C-alpha cells in the first residue's frame, strides 16, 4: 500500500518532532522511516495481515499536527477507577500530553512517571539506552512508522525493588482536533528487578473528528518484576486504532495483560512477548464487543526462549451486526526451551447472521518436553442455557444479555486489579443496553 500520506507527514513534521537535536534520535527516526517507506503499510497479502486491511486508513486522509494546542477546552478527563481511590493519572489529548489535566501524586523513591518529551529533556542518555531496545525487530511497518513519528507518550521507570501500590491511569482522548488527525504515541515501561506496578490505559474520545492513533509500547521487565497492564479501548466509532506492544520478560518476572475493546471502526492490538528468563510468566487475556461495521484484530505472539516458562492466553469476543473479529495467536517454543507450559483459547459468540470471526491459533514447537494446547470455538449462545432462563420467565432479550454478560464477566473478574472491574463491567452493560431491539 502506498505510504504517501505518511511520507508527507514525516516531511512536514520532521523538524518539529521532539529530540531532533539529538543525533542518535534523528538517526533512529530516519532509519525507521526508511524501513517503513520500504515496507509500506501492511496489506492482506502479508500472512500476518491476512484478515485485516488498512485501506480505510489510507482513504480517510488523515492530517498530522506538530504543535500541541493549549486551547482544548476540557477541564476533566473520565476515569475508570473509583474517584475516591488514590491513583496517578496522565492525560493525553490527540497524542499530546496535558500536564494541566494530569495528576501525579507523590511517588516512592526510585519511581519515575513522566512523558516522553520531559524524559528527553531530563535524561536523554537513559532514553538512548532504552528507546527501541525491545522493538529491535520492527520489521513491522506500523512500529517503524511509530518510531519515525513518535511525538509523545508516557515513560514509567521503576528502580530496583520499587513497588507502586497505587495504579497508574493513562487516559488518551482523541478526536479533539479540527480535522482528521493521525498521531503516534510512544510509551516506555522499564521495571528494574523486583519492582511492581499496575498500569491502566484508557482510550476514549471527546470530539467528532475521526482520528488514527498508532501507538507503540516497549516493556522491559527485569528479574522478578511484575507489571499488570490493562487497557480499555473505547475509541470513537469513526476512529482507527493500531497498537503494538513489545515486551521482554526476564527470569521470574510476570507480564499480566488484559485488554478490552469496544471502540474504533478498525483496531488492531498486536502484542509480542519474549519470555527470556527461566520462570518468566505471561498472561495475555482479552475481551471484545463489536458491532456495526467494526473490525477488531487481536494478534499476539509469545516466544518461549528458555526452559521453564509459562504463558496463558484467553480471548473472548462478542460479535454483532456486520462486525468482524480476527484473532491470531502464535506461541513459539524455541529449541531447548523445555518444560514450557503454554495454553491458548479463543472463544467467540456470533450474535448476527452477518458477523464474522477469523481465528488462527498457532503453535510452533521445537522442544519435546512441553505441554502446549490451544482451542478455538465459535457459535451462538447455548440454546440450553437460554431455554433454562426463558423457562424461568426471563424475557428473551434479558436472557440473552445475561448470558453474554456472564460469558465476558468470567474474564473480567479474573483480573488482578479488582478496582477496575466495575468500570469494565459497566462498559459491557452499556454495550448490551445499546444493542438494537431485535435480540
Amino acid at each position: 500500500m502506498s505510504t504517501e500520506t505518511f511520507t508527507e507527514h514525516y516531511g512536514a513534521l520532521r523538524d518539529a518532532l521532539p529530540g531532533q537535536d539529538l543525533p542518535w534520535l534523528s538517526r533512529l527516526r530516519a532509519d525507521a522511516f526508511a524501513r517503513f517507506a520500504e515496507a509500506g503499510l501492511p496489506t492482506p497479502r502479508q500472512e500476518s495481515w491476512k484478515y485485516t486491511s488498512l485501506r480505510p486508513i489510507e482513504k480517510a486522509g488523515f492530517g498530522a499536527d506538530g504543535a500541541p494546542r493549549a486551547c482544548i477546552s476540557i477541564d476533566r478527563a473520565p476515569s475508570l477507577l473509583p474517584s475516591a481511590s488514590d491513583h496517578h493519572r496522565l492525560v493525553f489529548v490527540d497524542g499530546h500530553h496535558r500536564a494541566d489535566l494530569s495528576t501525579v501524586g507523590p511517588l516512592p523513591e526510585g519511581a519515575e512517571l513522566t512523558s516522553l518529551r520531559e524524559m528527553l529533556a531530563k535524561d536523554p542518555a537513559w532514553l538512548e539506552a532504552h528507546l527501541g531496545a525491545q522493538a529491535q525487530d520492527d520489521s513491522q511497518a506500523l512500529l517503524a512508522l511509530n518510531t519515525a513519528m513518535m511525538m509523545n507518550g508516557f515513560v514509567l521507570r521503576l528502580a530496583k525493588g520499587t513497588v507502586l501500590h497505587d495504579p497508574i491511569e493513562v487516559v488518551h482522548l482523541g478526536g479533539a482536533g479540527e480535522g482528521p488527525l493521525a498521531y503516534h504515541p510512544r510509551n516506555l515501561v522499564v521495571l528494574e528487578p523486583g519492582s511492581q506496578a499496575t498500569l491502566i490505559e484508557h482510550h476514549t474520545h471527546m470530539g467528532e473528528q475521526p482520528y488514527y492513533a498508532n501507538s507503540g509500547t516497549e516493556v522491559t521487565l527485569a528479574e522478578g518484576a511484575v507489571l499488570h497492564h490493562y487497557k480499555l479501548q473505547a475509541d470513537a466509532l469513526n476512529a482507527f486504532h493500531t497498537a503494538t506492544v513489545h515486551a521482554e520478560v526476564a527470569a521470574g518476572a510476570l507480564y499480566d495483560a488484559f485488554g478490552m475493546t469496544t471502540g474504533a471502526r478498525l483496531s488492531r492490538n498486536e502484542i509480542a512477548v519474549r519470555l527470556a528468563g527461566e520462570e518468566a510468566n505471561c498472561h495475555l487475556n482479552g475481551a471484545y464487543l463489536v458491532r456495526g461495521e467494526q473490525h477488531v484484530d487481536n494478534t499476539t505472539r509469545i516466544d518461549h526462549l528458555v526452559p521453564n516458562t509459562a504463558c496463558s492466553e484467553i480471548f473472548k469476543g462478542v460479535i454483532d451486526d456486520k462486525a468482524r473479529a480476527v484473532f491470531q495467536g502464535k506461541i513459539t517454543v524455541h529449541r531447548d526451551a523445555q518444560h514450557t507450559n503454554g495454553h491458548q483459547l479463543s472463544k467467540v459468540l456470533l450474535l448476527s447472521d452477518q458477523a464474522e470471526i477469523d481465528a488462527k491459533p498457532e503453535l510452533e514447537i521445537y522442544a519435546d518436553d512441553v505441554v502446549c494446547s490451544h482451542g478455538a470455538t465459535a457459535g451462538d449462545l447455548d440454546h440450553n442455557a437460554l431455554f433454562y432462563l426463558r423457562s424461568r420467565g426471563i424475557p428473551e432479550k434479558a436472557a440473552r444479555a445475561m448470558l453474554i454478560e456472564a460469558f465476558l464477566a468470567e474474564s473480567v473478574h479474573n483480573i488482578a486489579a479488582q478496582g477496575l472491574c466495575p468500570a469494565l463491567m459497566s462498559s459491557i452493560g452499556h454495550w448490551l443496553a445499546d444493542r438494537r431491539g431485535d435480540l
Partner: protein
Amino acid sequence: MAATFETVEQVRALDKYKYGFVTDIEAETAPKGLSEDIVRFISAKKEEPEWLLEWRLKAYRHWLTMAEPTWSKVQFPPIDYQDSYYYSAPKQPGDGPKSLDEVDPKLLETYEKLGIPLSEQKLLAGVAVDAVFDSVSVATTFKKNLEEVGVIFCPISEAVKNHPELVRKYLGSVVPYGDNKHACLNSAVFTDGSFVYIPKGVRCPMELSTYFRINAQNTGQFERTLIIADEGSYVSYLEGCTAPQRDENQLHAAVVELIALDDAEIKYSTVQNWYPGDEDGKGGIYNFVTKRGACRGRNSKISWTQVETGSAITWKYPSCILQGDNSVGEFYSIAITNNHQQADTGTKMIHIGKNTRSRIIAKGISAGKSDSTYRGLVRIGAKAEGARNFTQCDSLLVGDKCGAHTVPYIESKNRRAIVEHEATTSRISEDQLFYCRQRGMSQEDAVALVVNGFCREVLQQLPMEFAVEAQKLVGISLEGSVG
C-alpha cells in the same frame, strides 16, 4: 486370513527401507525438460482428443505465469523443472499386455517385492488392484467383477477414450487447472492415474486400490485420479505408495478429485511411505499433492484417511467442499516424520450447504530432526446454517531436535454454526514408557506401542488391509529415533 498374514509378513520384513531397489526396465522416455512440445508429446502418446490437449496447453501456459507457493513451512532448494523427465512408460510388446502372462516379468518381480502378488489378487480379500508402474497402468484385475455391477475402474487414459463424456464433465471440476502451481503442472503433464465411476445406487462390491510407484530415475510422477460416485452409491478406495531408494529428489505432483452426488459416499484411504531420504536428509521424494473432494449432493459424504510416513517433503491438504445440504466431510490423518523429513499437511473443510458436518482428527508425530506441521482451514459460509465442525490435532514429539507446529485457520460467518478446535502438543509420557519397559519391552517397542495408541483413532478408520500394514509402518518409521 491368508492375505492379511502375508501383508503382516511382508511389512515385518521391512527392516529399514525394504523398498529401496531399482528395477532395470528400459523406459520409453520423453526428452528431459518441460515445454509445449513435451505436453503435446504426452498427449500424442496417449492418443488424446483435441479438447484434452487444449486443456493441457491452457494449464501449461498458465503454469508458466504462476509463482511457487511459499506459504508452507517446508524448505527445499528451488526445483529445476527442466531437469526432469515428464514421460516414461515401461516398454511393452505390441499394444500392451492382454493378460498377466504378457506383462514384463521384471515388473511382476517388482510387484512381488512390493507385496502385490497380482496372480493372487483374488485371495487378497476382495481387493482389485489397478497397479500403476511409472505412469502407465499395466494390469487391471477384477475388472470383470466390477463391470458386472457397472462400476468403471480403469486408467484415466483409457477412460478418456472410452468414457470421454464423463471425463470431460468432471475433470478439473473440483481442482481447476489454475488452482495452484503443482496442480497446474499436473494438469499439463499428467500421464496416468485411476478413473472410477460408481453408477447410481451401486455399492461397490470390493475395495478399490492402486499402488503407485516411482521407478525410472528422474521421472516426476504426475498422477491424476478422478472418482465419481453417482447418486446413492458407495465406494472405498485405497491408495498405497512406495518408491525405490534414490539420491536425487523426485517431484511428485498428483491431483485427486472426488465427486459425491446425492446420498453418495466416498471413502479414500492412503498409506504413503515413499522414500524419505537417508538419515542425513539426502534424497527423498517431494510429494506435492492436491486432493480435493466435492460433496455436491445432498446427504453425501467424503472421508479422507491418510497415513503419511514417507517422502522427504509432504505438502498435502485433502479437502472437502461441502456443497450439498447435510453433507459430511471427514479427515483422519497420521503424519510421521523422522530424520530430516518435513511434512506440511492438513485439510480444508469448506461448509457451504446447510447442516453440513465435518470432523478433523490429525495426529502428528515428529522424531529426529524433522518438522511436522498441521495446517488446516475450516470455513463456514454465510449460508451454512446449522453447520458443525470439530477439529482435534495432537502432536507428539520424540526427541528434542524436532518440531511440531499447528496452524489452523477458522473462519465462521454463520451464528448458527458451531466450530470447535482443540490442539495439544506433548511428548511421550515417561510413565507410559516406564510401564512398558518394566514389563520387558525394548525401548523401541515401547515407543511404537505408545505411538500406536496415540494414533489409534485414525488407524481404526483404515480398511483392514491397510490397518495392519499401517500399524507396522508407524513403528518402522520411528526406528532409530529413540535410545
